[in-house]
Protein backbone atom coordinates (compact mmCIF):
# COMPACT_ATOMS: atom_id res chain seq x y z
CA UNK A 1 0.00 0.00 0.00
CA UNK A 2 2.72 2.41 1.00
CA UNK A 3 4.72 1.60 -2.12
CA UNK A 4 1.74 2.32 -4.29
CA UNK A 5 0.97 5.58 -2.48
CA UNK A 6 4.55 6.66 -2.90
CA UNK A 7 4.50 5.83 -6.59
CA UNK A 8 1.58 8.18 -7.04
CA UNK A 9 2.85 10.80 -4.63
CA UNK A 10 5.97 11.27 -6.68
CA UNK A 11 3.90 11.74 -9.82
CA UNK A 12 1.50 14.64 -9.15
CA UNK A 13 0.55 14.88 -12.82
CA UNK A 14 -0.63 11.28 -12.71
CA UNK A 15 -2.78 11.99 -9.64
CA UNK A 16 -4.26 15.00 -11.38
CA UNK A 17 -5.06 12.82 -14.36
CA UNK A 18 -6.70 10.20 -12.14
CA UNK A 19 -8.76 12.82 -10.32
CA UNK A 20 -9.78 14.79 -13.34
CA UNK A 21 -10.13 11.86 -15.71
CA UNK A 22 -13.45 10.31 -14.64
CA UNK A 23 -15.50 13.53 -14.33
CA UNK A 24 -14.02 15.01 -17.48
CA UNK A 25 -14.47 11.86 -19.53
CA UNK A 26 -18.06 11.70 -18.31
CA UNK A 27 -18.80 15.32 -19.14
CA UNK A 28 -17.00 15.18 -22.46
CA UNK A 29 -18.55 11.97 -23.64
CA UNK A 30 -22.04 12.37 -22.24
CA UNK A 31 -22.61 16.09 -22.19
CA UNK A 32 -20.45 17.58 -24.91
CA UNK A 33 -21.02 14.47 -26.99
CA UNK A 34 -24.75 15.05 -26.69
CA UNK A 35 -24.45 18.72 -27.56
CA UNK A 36 -22.50 17.66 -30.60
CA UNK A 37 -25.20 15.14 -31.52
CA UNK A 38 -27.70 17.98 -31.14
CA UNK A 39 -25.71 20.09 -33.56
CA UNK A 40 -25.47 17.23 -36.04
CA UNK A 41 -29.21 16.54 -35.84
CA UNK A 42 -30.04 20.16 -36.54
CA UNK A 43 -28.46 19.68 -39.97
CA UNK A 44 -30.54 16.60 -40.78
CA UNK A 45 -34.10 16.81 -41.99
CA UNK A 46 -37.36 14.92 -41.73
CA UNK A 47 -38.89 13.31 -44.78
CA UNK A 48 -42.44 14.66 -44.72
CA UNK A 49 -43.93 11.54 -46.32
CA UNK A 50 -42.17 8.69 -44.60
CA UNK A 51 -41.73 10.54 -41.29
CA UNK A 52 -38.15 9.26 -41.15
CA UNK A 53 -35.08 11.31 -40.38
CA UNK A 54 -32.82 11.68 -43.38
CA UNK A 55 -29.23 11.75 -42.21
CA UNK A 56 -27.75 14.04 -44.80
CA UNK A 57 -26.31 17.51 -44.35
CA UNK A 58 -28.85 20.23 -45.10
CA UNK A 59 -29.76 23.66 -43.84
CA UNK A 60 -33.37 23.17 -44.87
CA UNK A 61 -34.39 22.59 -41.27
CA UNK A 62 -32.88 25.89 -40.18
CA UNK A 63 -34.75 27.57 -43.01
CA UNK A 64 -37.99 26.37 -41.42
CA UNK A 65 -37.18 28.41 -38.32
CA UNK A 66 -37.74 31.55 -40.37
CA UNK A 67 -41.39 30.68 -41.02
CA UNK A 68 -43.63 33.37 -39.51
CA UNK A 69 -45.16 30.86 -37.10
CA UNK A 70 -41.75 29.97 -35.68
CA UNK A 71 -40.57 33.57 -35.52
CA UNK A 72 -43.74 34.27 -33.55
CA UNK A 73 -42.83 31.55 -31.12
CA UNK A 74 -39.38 33.04 -30.60
CA UNK A 75 -40.60 36.58 -30.06
CA UNK A 76 -43.43 35.45 -27.80
CA UNK A 77 -41.06 33.46 -25.60
CA UNK A 78 -38.40 36.18 -25.50
CA UNK A 79 -41.07 38.74 -24.61
CA UNK A 80 -42.32 36.57 -21.75
CA UNK A 81 -38.75 35.97 -20.54
CA UNK A 82 -38.09 39.70 -20.53
CA UNK A 83 -41.33 40.52 -18.70
CA UNK A 84 -40.67 37.84 -16.08
CA UNK A 85 -37.11 39.06 -15.59
CA UNK A 86 -38.16 42.67 -15.00
CA UNK A 87 -40.99 41.69 -12.67
CA UNK A 88 -38.76 39.36 -10.67
CA UNK A 89 -36.10 42.03 -10.28
CA UNK A 90 -38.72 44.35 -8.82
CA UNK A 91 -40.24 41.74 -6.49
CA UNK A 92 -36.85 40.38 -5.40
CA UNK A 93 -35.25 43.68 -4.51
CA UNK A 94 -36.93 44.54 -1.20
CA UNK A 95 -36.30 41.11 0.32
CA UNK A 96 -32.73 40.94 -0.99
CA UNK A 97 -32.04 44.43 0.33
CA UNK A 98 -33.57 43.60 3.69
CA UNK A 99 -31.55 40.38 4.07
CA UNK A 100 -28.30 42.00 2.99
CA UNK A 101 -28.44 45.20 4.95
CA UNK A 102 -30.96 45.03 7.79
CA UNK A 103 -31.28 41.47 9.08
CA UNK A 104 -29.32 40.39 12.15
CA UNK A 105 -26.85 37.55 11.46
CA UNK A 106 -29.24 35.02 12.97
CA UNK A 107 -32.25 36.22 11.03
CA UNK A 108 -30.08 36.42 7.95
CA UNK A 109 -29.32 32.71 8.13
CA UNK A 110 -33.00 31.85 8.45
CA UNK A 111 -34.09 34.19 5.70
CA UNK A 112 -31.42 32.79 3.45
CA UNK A 113 -32.73 29.29 4.09
CA UNK A 114 -36.27 30.55 3.52
CA UNK A 115 -35.21 31.80 0.09
CA UNK A 116 -33.16 28.77 -0.95
CA UNK A 117 -35.72 26.13 0.06
CA UNK A 118 -38.14 27.14 -2.71
CA UNK A 119 -35.13 27.41 -5.04
CA UNK A 120 -34.30 23.75 -4.56
CA UNK A 121 -37.82 22.48 -3.94
CA UNK A 122 -39.83 20.59 -6.48
CA UNK A 123 -40.28 22.91 -9.38
CA UNK A 124 -43.08 20.81 -10.75
CA UNK A 125 -45.10 20.84 -7.55
CA UNK A 126 -44.68 24.58 -7.34
CA UNK A 127 -46.11 24.92 -10.83
CA UNK A 128 -48.92 22.62 -9.78
CA UNK A 129 -49.65 24.86 -6.81
CA UNK A 130 -50.41 27.73 -9.17
CA UNK A 131 -52.64 25.53 -11.26
CA UNK A 132 -54.73 25.14 -8.09
CA UNK A 133 -54.59 28.77 -7.14
CA UNK A 134 -55.36 30.17 -10.59
CA UNK A 135 -58.15 27.71 -11.40
CA UNK A 136 -61.52 29.17 -12.34
CA UNK A 137 -62.99 27.89 -9.09
CA UNK A 138 -59.73 28.53 -7.19
CA UNK A 139 -58.57 30.92 -4.51
CA UNK A 140 -57.84 33.94 -6.73
CA UNK A 141 -61.30 33.93 -8.30
CA UNK A 142 -62.81 33.45 -4.87
CA UNK A 143 -60.83 36.42 -3.59
CA UNK A 144 -62.02 38.72 -6.41
CA UNK A 145 -65.57 37.54 -5.82
CA UNK A 146 -65.23 38.04 -2.07
CA UNK A 147 -64.29 41.68 -2.68
CA UNK A 148 -67.07 42.01 -5.26
CA UNK A 149 -64.63 43.00 -7.98
CA UNK A 150 -65.18 40.04 -10.31
CA UNK A 151 -65.43 42.48 -13.17
CA UNK A 152 -61.71 43.36 -12.84
CA UNK A 153 -60.77 39.74 -13.39
CA UNK A 154 -63.19 39.37 -16.26
CA UNK A 155 -61.80 42.50 -17.87
CA UNK A 156 -58.23 41.20 -17.51
CA UNK A 157 -59.11 37.88 -19.08
CA UNK A 158 -60.88 39.58 -21.96
CA UNK A 159 -57.71 41.40 -23.02
CA UNK A 160 -56.67 40.07 -26.42
CA UNK A 161 -53.00 39.10 -26.14
CA UNK A 162 -52.76 38.11 -22.49
CA UNK A 163 -56.26 36.94 -21.57
CA UNK A 164 -57.84 33.52 -21.80
CA UNK A 165 -60.72 31.36 -20.65
CA UNK A 166 -59.47 31.44 -17.06
CA UNK A 167 -56.31 32.51 -15.25
CA UNK A 168 -55.11 28.91 -15.36
CA UNK A 169 -55.23 28.95 -19.18
CA UNK A 170 -53.83 32.38 -19.95
CA UNK A 171 -50.56 34.22 -20.54
CA UNK A 172 -51.27 36.20 -17.34
CA UNK A 173 -51.35 32.97 -15.39
CA UNK A 174 -48.14 31.80 -17.02
CA UNK A 175 -46.50 35.10 -16.24
CA UNK A 176 -47.44 34.89 -12.56
CA UNK A 177 -46.27 31.29 -12.33
CA UNK A 178 -42.98 32.03 -14.05
CA UNK A 179 -42.36 34.96 -11.72
CA UNK A 180 -43.07 32.74 -8.77
CA UNK A 181 -40.90 29.77 -9.66
CA UNK A 182 -37.79 31.73 -10.72
CA UNK A 183 -37.96 34.40 -8.00
CA UNK A 184 -35.36 32.79 -5.68
CA UNK A 185 -32.85 32.79 -8.54
CA UNK A 186 -33.14 36.57 -8.60
CA UNK A 187 -33.07 37.16 -4.84
CA UNK A 188 -29.81 35.31 -4.13
CA UNK A 189 -27.52 37.18 -6.59
CA UNK A 190 -28.98 40.57 -5.69
CA UNK A 191 -28.44 39.82 -2.02
CA UNK A 192 -24.85 38.73 -2.73
CA UNK A 193 -24.18 41.94 -4.64
CA UNK A 194 -25.73 44.13 -1.94
CA UNK A 195 -23.81 42.26 0.73
CA UNK A 196 -20.64 43.64 -0.86
CA UNK A 197 -21.76 47.26 -0.70
CA UNK A 198 -19.88 48.55 2.33
CA UNK A 199 -21.96 50.26 4.96
CA UNK A 200 -19.46 53.12 4.91
CA UNK A 201 -20.41 53.91 1.32
CA UNK A 202 -24.05 54.39 2.27
CA UNK A 203 -23.05 56.46 5.26
CA UNK A 204 -20.69 58.53 3.16
CA UNK A 205 -23.50 59.34 0.77
CA UNK A 206 -25.72 60.41 3.66
CA UNK A 207 -22.82 62.38 5.04
CA UNK A 208 -22.46 64.25 1.76
CA UNK A 209 -26.03 65.44 2.06
CA UNK A 210 -27.99 62.88 0.05
CA UNK A 211 -31.35 61.91 1.46
CA UNK A 212 -32.40 58.28 1.77
CA UNK A 213 -33.99 58.01 -1.66
CA UNK A 214 -31.09 59.80 -3.36
CA UNK A 215 -28.64 57.45 -1.67
CA UNK A 216 -30.72 54.50 -2.79
CA UNK A 217 -30.86 55.63 -6.40
CA UNK A 218 -27.31 56.92 -6.73
CA UNK A 219 -25.39 54.44 -4.58
CA UNK A 220 -27.28 51.27 -3.70
CA UNK A 221 -28.97 50.66 -7.03
CA UNK A 222 -25.90 51.01 -9.27
CA UNK A 223 -23.91 48.75 -6.96
CA UNK A 224 -26.69 46.16 -6.90
CA UNK A 225 -27.01 46.23 -10.66
CA UNK A 226 -24.48 43.44 -11.40
CA UNK A 227 -26.52 41.26 -9.04
CA UNK A 228 -29.70 42.05 -10.94
CA UNK A 229 -27.97 41.15 -14.19
CA UNK A 230 -26.65 37.92 -12.70
CA UNK A 231 -30.13 37.02 -11.50
CA UNK A 232 -31.60 37.88 -14.86
CA UNK A 233 -29.35 35.28 -16.50
CA UNK A 234 -31.28 32.64 -14.59
CA UNK A 235 -34.77 34.06 -14.91
CA UNK A 236 -34.29 34.74 -18.60
CA UNK A 237 -32.64 31.45 -19.48
CA UNK A 238 -35.03 29.34 -17.43
CA UNK A 239 -38.12 31.00 -18.91
CA UNK A 240 -36.70 30.66 -22.40
CA UNK A 241 -36.27 26.91 -22.17
CA UNK A 242 -39.27 25.94 -20.08
CA UNK A 243 -42.11 23.88 -21.50
CA UNK A 244 -43.84 22.74 -18.32
CA UNK A 245 -45.50 26.05 -17.51
CA UNK A 246 -46.78 26.76 -21.07
CA UNK A 247 -47.93 23.16 -21.30
CA UNK A 248 -49.77 23.34 -17.99
CA UNK A 249 -51.17 26.88 -18.12
CA UNK A 250 -50.85 27.99 -21.71
CA UNK A 251 -53.13 27.87 -24.67
CA UNK A 252 -52.47 26.84 -28.27
CA UNK A 253 -49.99 29.63 -28.81
CA UNK A 254 -46.69 27.80 -28.44
CA UNK A 255 -43.52 28.77 -26.61
CA UNK A 256 -40.03 27.63 -27.65
CA UNK A 257 -39.73 24.82 -25.14
CA UNK A 258 -43.19 23.58 -25.93
CA UNK A 259 -42.50 23.59 -29.65
CA UNK A 260 -39.25 21.67 -29.16
CA UNK A 261 -41.02 19.21 -26.90
CA UNK A 262 -43.81 18.52 -29.33
CA UNK A 263 -41.53 18.35 -32.38
CA UNK A 264 -39.36 15.68 -30.87
CA UNK A 265 -42.30 13.87 -29.31
CA UNK A 266 -45.55 13.60 -31.18
CA UNK A 267 -44.29 14.52 -34.64
CA UNK A 268 -40.94 12.79 -34.25
CA UNK A 269 -39.21 15.69 -35.96
CA UNK A 270 -35.99 15.60 -33.98
CA UNK A 271 -34.04 17.68 -36.57
CA UNK A 272 -36.47 20.59 -36.24
CA UNK A 273 -36.44 20.27 -32.44
CA UNK A 274 -32.63 20.37 -32.52
CA UNK A 275 -32.51 23.37 -34.82
CA UNK A 276 -35.02 25.20 -32.66
CA UNK A 277 -32.88 24.58 -29.57
CA UNK A 278 -30.06 26.50 -31.21
CA UNK A 279 -32.24 29.59 -30.76
CA UNK A 280 -32.15 29.64 -26.94
CA UNK A 281 -28.47 28.63 -27.00
CA UNK A 282 -27.53 31.55 -29.25
CA UNK A 283 -29.74 33.98 -27.31
CA UNK A 284 -28.15 32.85 -24.03
CA UNK A 285 -24.63 33.16 -25.45
CA UNK A 286 -25.31 36.76 -26.46
CA UNK A 287 -26.98 37.41 -23.14
CA UNK A 288 -24.00 35.99 -21.24
CA UNK A 289 -21.57 38.11 -23.23
CA UNK A 290 -23.52 41.26 -22.38
CA UNK A 291 -23.88 40.18 -18.76
CA UNK A 292 -20.14 39.69 -18.55
CA UNK A 293 -19.57 43.20 -19.80
CA UNK A 294 -21.91 44.47 -17.10
CA UNK A 295 -19.91 42.66 -14.41
CA UNK A 296 -22.55 40.09 -13.56
CA UNK A 297 -20.12 37.23 -13.10
CA UNK A 298 -18.52 38.87 -10.09
CA UNK A 299 -21.90 38.80 -8.40
CA UNK A 300 -22.41 35.08 -8.87
Amino acid at each position, binding site marked *: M*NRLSTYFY*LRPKLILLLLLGPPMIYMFVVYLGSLFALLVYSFYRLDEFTGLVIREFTIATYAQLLLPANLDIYSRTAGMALAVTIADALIAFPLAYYIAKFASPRLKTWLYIAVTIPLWSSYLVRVYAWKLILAKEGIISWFFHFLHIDFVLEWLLSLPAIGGSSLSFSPIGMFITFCYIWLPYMIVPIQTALERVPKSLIEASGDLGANASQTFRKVVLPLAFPGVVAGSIFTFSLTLGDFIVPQALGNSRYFIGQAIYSHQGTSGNLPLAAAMTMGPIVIMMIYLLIARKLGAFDAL
Partner: protein
Amino acid sequence: MSDVTAVEFKNVSRVFFVRHRDQSGEVRAVDDVSMEISDGEFFSLLGPSGSGKTTCLRMIAGFDRPTSGSIRLYGKDVSNLPPYERDVNTVFQDYALFPHMSIGENIAYGLMIRKVPRAERDKRVDEMLDLVRLPGFAARKPSQLSGGQRQRVALARALVNHPKVLLLDEPLGALDLKLRQQMQVELKSIQKRVGITFIFVTHDQEEALTMSDRMAVFNQGRVEQIGAPSEIYEKPASSFVAGFVGTSNLLGGEAARRITGSNQTFSIRPEKIHLGPQNGQASPGQVFADGVVRDVVYLGLYTRYLVEVENGVDLVVVEQNLRTTSMDVLKARGRKVRLFWEKEHMSQVGG
Protein backbone atom coordinates in the same frame (compact mmCIF):
# COMPACT_ATOMS: atom_id res chain seq x y z
CA MET B 1 25.90 18.51 19.40
CA SER B 2 28.02 15.90 17.74
CA ASP B 3 30.10 15.52 14.61
CA VAL B 4 27.42 13.48 12.88
CA THR B 5 25.81 15.33 9.98
CA ALA B 6 22.03 15.37 10.34
CA VAL B 7 21.04 17.15 7.15
CA GLU B 8 23.17 17.76 4.13
CA PHE B 9 22.30 19.87 1.10
CA LYS B 10 24.47 19.26 -1.94
CA ASN B 11 24.07 21.80 -4.75
CA VAL B 12 20.33 21.89 -4.24
CA SER B 13 18.24 24.01 -6.60
CA ARG B 14 14.49 24.34 -6.84
CA VAL B 15 13.08 25.95 -9.95
CA PHE B 16 9.41 26.83 -10.17
CA PHE B 17 7.71 27.35 -13.43
CA VAL B 18 5.37 30.26 -12.93
CA ARG B 19 2.46 30.77 -15.23
CA HIS B 20 0.80 34.11 -15.07
CA ARG B 21 -1.97 35.68 -17.07
CA ASP B 22 0.33 37.28 -19.58
CA GLN B 23 3.82 36.19 -18.70
CA SER B 24 5.47 32.96 -17.74
CA GLY B 25 8.92 32.09 -16.64
CA GLU B 26 11.19 30.25 -14.32
CA VAL B 27 11.83 31.31 -10.76
CA ARG B 28 14.87 29.92 -9.01
CA ALA B 29 13.49 29.77 -5.49
CA VAL B 30 16.55 27.91 -4.25
CA ASP B 31 19.76 28.36 -6.17
CA ASP B 32 22.65 25.94 -5.73
CA VAL B 33 22.52 25.66 -1.94
CA SER B 34 25.02 23.50 -0.12
CA MET B 35 25.10 23.22 3.66
CA GLU B 36 25.57 20.75 6.48
CA ILE B 37 23.58 20.76 9.68
CA SER B 38 24.97 18.77 12.58
CA ASP B 39 23.14 16.35 14.81
CA GLY B 40 21.64 18.05 17.87
CA GLU B 41 22.14 21.53 16.51
CA PHE B 42 19.70 24.43 16.74
CA PHE B 43 20.06 25.70 13.22
CA SER B 44 18.23 28.70 11.80
CA LEU B 45 17.45 29.57 8.21
CA LEU B 46 17.25 33.35 8.19
CA GLY B 47 16.24 35.58 5.34
CA PRO B 48 13.60 37.93 4.01
CA SER B 49 10.44 36.49 2.53
CA GLY B 50 10.99 34.92 -0.85
CA SER B 51 14.63 34.22 -0.11
CA GLY B 52 14.25 30.45 -0.36
CA LYS B 53 14.45 29.51 3.30
CA THR B 54 10.96 28.06 3.53
CA THR B 55 11.43 26.14 0.28
CA CYS B 56 14.55 24.59 1.79
CA LEU B 57 12.58 23.56 4.85
CA ARG B 58 9.82 22.11 2.71
CA MET B 59 12.37 20.09 0.80
CA ILE B 60 13.73 18.63 4.02
CA ALA B 61 10.18 17.74 5.07
CA GLY B 62 9.44 16.27 1.66
CA PHE B 63 6.59 18.59 0.62
CA ASP B 64 8.75 19.77 -2.20
CA ARG B 65 11.55 18.13 -4.11
CA PRO B 66 14.78 19.59 -5.50
CA THR B 67 14.97 20.24 -9.23
CA SER B 68 18.64 19.32 -9.02
CA GLY B 69 21.12 18.37 -6.31
CA SER B 70 20.51 16.06 -3.38
CA ILE B 71 19.40 16.18 0.23
CA ARG B 72 20.70 13.65 2.74
CA LEU B 73 19.28 12.85 6.14
CA TYR B 74 21.87 11.10 8.30
CA GLY B 75 23.72 10.00 5.18
CA LYS B 76 20.66 8.67 3.36
CA ASP B 77 19.55 10.38 0.18
CA VAL B 78 15.94 11.39 0.75
CA SER B 79 15.52 13.69 -2.24
CA ASN B 80 12.78 11.49 -3.65
CA LEU B 81 11.15 10.18 -0.48
CA PRO B 82 7.61 11.33 0.34
CA PRO B 83 7.10 13.14 3.66
CA TYR B 84 5.58 10.11 5.37
CA GLU B 85 8.73 8.10 4.85
CA ARG B 86 11.08 10.65 6.39
CA ASP B 87 12.09 10.72 9.99
CA VAL B 88 11.41 14.42 10.38
CA ASN B 89 8.43 16.32 11.73
CA THR B 90 7.26 19.83 11.21
CA VAL B 91 5.72 22.60 13.29
CA PHE B 92 3.71 24.64 10.82
CA GLN B 93 3.44 28.38 10.71
CA ASP B 94 -0.38 28.19 11.00
CA TYR B 95 -0.05 25.15 13.35
CA ALA B 96 -2.24 23.01 11.01
CA LEU B 97 -4.01 21.33 13.93
CA PHE B 98 -6.82 19.03 12.81
CA PRO B 99 -9.98 20.89 13.82
CA HIS B 100 -12.12 17.75 14.00
CA MET B 101 -9.86 16.04 16.52
CA SER B 102 -9.26 16.73 20.20
CA ILE B 103 -5.88 17.91 21.40
CA GLY B 104 -5.08 14.37 22.57
CA GLU B 105 -6.04 12.91 19.18
CA ASN B 106 -4.00 15.55 17.41
CA ILE B 107 -0.90 14.70 19.39
CA ALA B 108 -1.48 10.95 19.09
CA TYR B 109 -2.03 11.16 15.31
CA GLY B 110 1.48 10.08 14.30
CA LEU B 111 1.41 7.27 16.88
CA MET B 112 -2.00 6.08 15.68
CA ILE B 113 -0.73 5.95 12.09
CA ARG B 114 2.23 3.91 13.34
CA LYS B 115 -0.19 1.60 15.16
CA VAL B 116 1.28 2.22 18.59
CA PRO B 117 -0.99 0.52 21.17
CA ARG B 118 -3.57 2.76 22.78
CA ALA B 119 -2.17 2.62 26.34
CA GLU B 120 1.27 3.57 25.14
CA ARG B 121 -0.20 6.38 23.04
CA ASP B 122 -2.08 7.85 25.98
CA LYS B 123 1.02 7.72 28.13
CA ARG B 124 3.14 9.51 25.58
CA VAL B 125 0.48 12.13 24.90
CA ASP B 126 0.41 12.92 28.63
CA GLU B 127 4.20 13.18 28.73
CA MET B 128 4.14 15.57 25.82
CA LEU B 129 1.40 17.71 27.34
CA ASP B 130 3.57 17.96 30.46
CA LEU B 131 6.60 18.90 28.37
CA VAL B 132 4.78 21.78 26.68
CA ARG B 133 3.12 22.71 30.00
CA LEU B 134 -0.48 21.99 28.97
CA PRO B 135 -1.36 19.10 31.33
CA GLY B 136 -5.02 18.06 31.27
CA PHE B 137 -5.74 19.62 27.87
CA ALA B 138 -6.11 16.30 26.03
CA ALA B 139 -9.91 16.41 25.74
CA ARG B 140 -10.21 19.94 24.43
CA LYS B 141 -10.66 20.97 20.83
CA PRO B 142 -8.18 23.18 18.97
CA SER B 143 -10.82 25.90 18.59
CA GLN B 144 -10.92 26.28 22.39
CA LEU B 145 -7.22 27.14 22.61
CA SER B 146 -5.37 30.42 22.35
CA GLY B 147 -2.71 31.00 19.71
CA GLY B 148 0.12 30.31 22.10
CA GLN B 149 -1.52 27.10 23.32
CA ARG B 150 -2.12 25.85 19.78
CA GLN B 151 1.51 26.49 19.09
CA ARG B 152 2.52 24.26 22.00
CA VAL B 153 0.17 21.53 20.83
CA ALA B 154 1.70 21.69 17.35
CA LEU B 155 5.10 21.29 18.98
CA ALA B 156 3.94 18.35 21.09
CA ARG B 157 2.33 16.68 18.08
CA ALA B 158 5.62 16.83 16.20
CA LEU B 159 7.87 15.83 19.11
CA VAL B 160 5.83 12.85 20.28
CA ASN B 161 7.11 10.86 17.29
CA HIS B 162 10.74 11.31 18.41
CA PRO B 163 11.82 12.57 15.00
CA LYS B 164 15.51 12.83 14.23
CA VAL B 165 15.01 16.35 13.01
CA LEU B 166 12.33 18.87 13.95
CA LEU B 167 11.47 21.52 11.41
CA LEU B 168 9.90 24.77 12.56
CA ASP B 169 8.41 27.10 9.97
CA GLU B 170 8.22 30.57 11.50
CA PRO B 171 6.33 29.05 14.43
CA LEU B 172 6.36 32.24 16.47
CA GLY B 173 5.29 34.56 13.69
CA ALA B 174 1.64 34.71 14.72
CA LEU B 175 2.29 35.40 18.41
CA ASP B 176 2.51 38.81 20.04
CA LEU B 177 5.87 40.15 21.15
CA LYS B 178 5.73 39.13 24.82
CA LEU B 179 4.53 35.61 24.14
CA ARG B 180 7.08 35.30 21.36
CA GLN B 181 9.97 36.12 23.66
CA GLN B 182 8.68 33.68 26.27
CA MET B 183 8.32 30.94 23.65
CA GLN B 184 11.85 31.59 22.37
CA VAL B 185 13.25 30.72 25.76
CA GLU B 186 10.94 27.75 26.11
CA LEU B 187 11.73 26.33 22.67
CA LYS B 188 15.42 26.55 23.37
CA SER B 189 15.07 24.73 26.68
CA ILE B 190 12.87 22.02 25.15
CA GLN B 191 15.45 21.51 22.44
CA LYS B 192 18.16 21.05 25.06
CA ARG B 193 16.01 18.55 26.93
CA VAL B 194 15.02 16.37 23.96
CA GLY B 195 18.41 16.80 22.30
CA ILE B 196 17.27 16.55 18.69
CA THR B 197 18.19 18.72 15.74
CA PHE B 198 15.96 21.78 15.35
CA ILE B 199 15.84 23.56 12.03
CA PHE B 200 14.16 26.87 12.48
CA VAL B 201 12.96 29.16 9.71
CA THR B 202 12.57 32.84 10.55
CA HIS B 203 12.79 36.27 9.02
CA ASP B 204 13.44 37.84 12.42
CA GLN B 205 17.19 38.33 12.80
CA GLU B 206 16.95 38.94 16.52
CA GLU B 207 15.13 35.63 16.99
CA ALA B 208 17.76 33.81 14.94
CA LEU B 209 20.60 35.46 16.88
CA THR B 210 19.15 34.58 20.30
CA MET B 211 18.22 30.99 19.63
CA SER B 212 20.60 29.44 17.13
CA ASP B 213 23.77 27.48 17.56
CA ARG B 214 24.44 28.22 13.94
CA MET B 215 22.49 29.88 11.18
CA ALA B 216 22.39 30.28 7.43
CA VAL B 217 21.49 33.65 5.93
CA PHE B 218 19.47 33.41 2.72
CA ASN B 219 19.10 35.96 -0.02
CA GLN B 220 17.43 35.45 -3.38
CA GLY B 221 17.63 31.68 -3.22
CA ARG B 222 21.27 31.59 -2.22
CA VAL B 223 23.06 31.09 1.08
CA GLU B 224 25.06 34.22 1.80
CA GLN B 225 26.77 33.01 4.94
CA ILE B 226 26.71 30.15 7.42
CA GLY B 227 28.06 30.47 10.93
CA ALA B 228 27.46 30.98 14.62
CA PRO B 229 25.41 34.09 15.49
CA SER B 230 28.45 35.94 16.84
CA GLU B 231 30.40 35.18 13.70
CA ILE B 232 27.56 36.34 11.45
CA TYR B 233 27.13 39.48 13.46
CA GLU B 234 30.73 40.40 13.83
CA LYS B 235 32.10 39.16 10.54
CA PRO B 236 29.33 39.52 7.96
CA ALA B 237 30.54 38.02 4.73
CA SER B 238 28.53 40.25 2.45
CA SER B 239 26.91 43.63 2.43
CA PHE B 240 23.54 41.86 2.43
CA VAL B 241 24.31 39.99 5.65
CA ALA B 242 25.72 43.12 7.22
CA GLY B 243 22.52 44.97 6.39
CA PHE B 244 20.05 42.22 7.21
CA VAL B 245 21.51 41.03 10.51
CA GLY B 246 21.55 44.01 12.84
CA THR B 247 22.25 47.49 11.51
CA SER B 248 25.50 48.23 9.86
CA ASN B 249 27.47 50.98 8.19
CA LEU B 250 28.90 50.23 4.83
CA LEU B 251 32.04 52.05 3.88
CA GLY B 252 33.18 51.85 0.30
CA GLY B 253 34.45 53.81 -2.67
CA GLU B 254 36.18 57.15 -2.26
CA ALA B 255 35.36 57.47 1.44
CA ALA B 256 36.80 54.04 2.23
CA ARG B 257 39.96 54.83 0.32
CA ARG B 258 40.49 58.07 2.19
CA ILE B 259 39.74 56.67 5.64
CA THR B 260 41.19 53.17 5.44
CA GLY B 261 43.50 53.44 2.47
CA SER B 262 41.87 50.42 0.84
CA ASN B 263 39.68 49.91 -2.23
CA GLN B 264 37.55 47.30 -0.50
CA THR B 265 34.08 47.79 0.98
CA PHE B 266 33.86 47.35 4.72
CA SER B 267 31.09 46.99 7.20
CA ILE B 268 31.26 48.46 10.68
CA ARG B 269 28.64 48.13 13.40
CA PRO B 270 27.30 51.44 14.86
CA GLU B 271 28.12 50.46 18.45
CA LYS B 272 31.77 49.86 17.60
CA ILE B 273 32.28 53.48 16.58
CA HIS B 274 33.31 55.91 19.25
CA LEU B 275 32.33 59.57 19.02
CA GLY B 276 35.24 61.81 20.05
CA PRO B 277 36.18 65.49 20.08
CA GLN B 278 37.38 67.05 16.86
CA ASN B 279 40.98 67.05 17.97
CA GLY B 280 41.02 63.57 19.51
CA GLN B 281 43.99 61.28 18.85
CA ALA B 282 43.62 57.76 17.46
CA SER B 283 45.49 55.06 19.37
CA PRO B 284 47.46 52.37 17.54
CA GLY B 285 45.20 49.91 15.71
CA GLN B 286 42.46 52.49 15.43
CA VAL B 287 41.00 54.23 12.41
CA PHE B 288 39.44 57.67 12.49
CA ALA B 289 37.24 59.86 10.34
CA ASP B 290 36.11 63.47 10.69
CA GLY B 291 32.54 64.45 10.24
CA VAL B 292 29.57 66.60 11.21
CA VAL B 293 26.67 65.38 13.35
CA ARG B 294 23.62 65.69 11.13
CA ASP B 295 21.00 64.12 13.33
CA VAL B 296 20.58 62.93 16.90
CA VAL B 297 17.91 60.52 18.10
CA TYR B 298 17.63 60.07 21.85
CA LEU B 299 16.36 56.55 22.61
CA GLY B 300 16.64 56.41 26.40
CA LEU B 301 19.07 53.53 26.79
CA TYR B 302 21.26 54.89 24.04
CA THR B 303 21.50 57.68 21.51
CA ARG B 304 21.81 57.30 17.78
CA TYR B 305 23.88 59.83 15.87
CA LEU B 306 24.01 60.32 12.14
CA VAL B 307 27.44 61.61 11.20
CA GLU B 308 28.28 62.80 7.71
CA VAL B 309 31.90 61.97 7.00
CA GLU B 310 31.89 62.98 3.38
CA ASN B 311 29.37 64.39 0.94
CA GLY B 312 26.51 61.91 0.98
CA VAL B 313 28.27 59.36 3.17
CA ASP B 314 26.64 59.04 6.60
CA LEU B 315 27.72 56.71 9.40
CA VAL B 316 25.34 55.65 12.13
CA VAL B 317 26.91 55.77 15.57
CA VAL B 318 25.31 54.41 18.71
CA GLU B 319 26.47 55.38 22.17
CA GLN B 320 25.08 54.28 25.46
CA ASN B 321 23.82 57.08 27.66
CA LEU B 322 26.12 56.18 30.54
CA ARG B 323 26.85 59.69 31.72
CA THR B 324 24.94 61.85 29.30
CA THR B 325 21.38 63.15 29.48
CA SER B 326 19.02 63.98 26.68
CA MET B 327 19.88 67.67 27.15
CA ASP B 328 23.56 66.98 26.51
CA VAL B 329 23.20 64.73 23.53
CA LEU B 330 20.67 66.83 21.67
CA LYS B 331 23.12 69.71 21.72
CA ALA B 332 25.50 67.64 19.57
CA ARG B 333 23.59 68.44 16.38
CA GLY B 334 25.77 70.33 13.90
CA ARG B 335 28.92 69.75 15.93
CA LYS B 336 32.17 68.78 14.22
CA VAL B 337 33.37 65.44 15.59
CA ARG B 338 35.99 62.79 15.02
CA LEU B 339 34.97 59.10 14.87
CA PHE B 340 37.25 56.30 16.05
CA TRP B 341 37.05 52.55 15.73
CA GLU B 342 39.26 49.50 15.99
CA LYS B 343 40.57 48.16 12.70
CA GLU B 344 39.64 44.64 13.75
CA HIS B 345 35.98 45.62 14.06
CA MET B 346 35.81 46.30 10.37
CA SER B 347 34.86 43.39 8.18
CA GLN B 348 35.45 43.27 4.50
CA VAL B 349 32.24 42.59 2.62
CA GLY B 350 33.50 42.47 -0.92
CA GLY B 351 33.49 45.02 -3.68
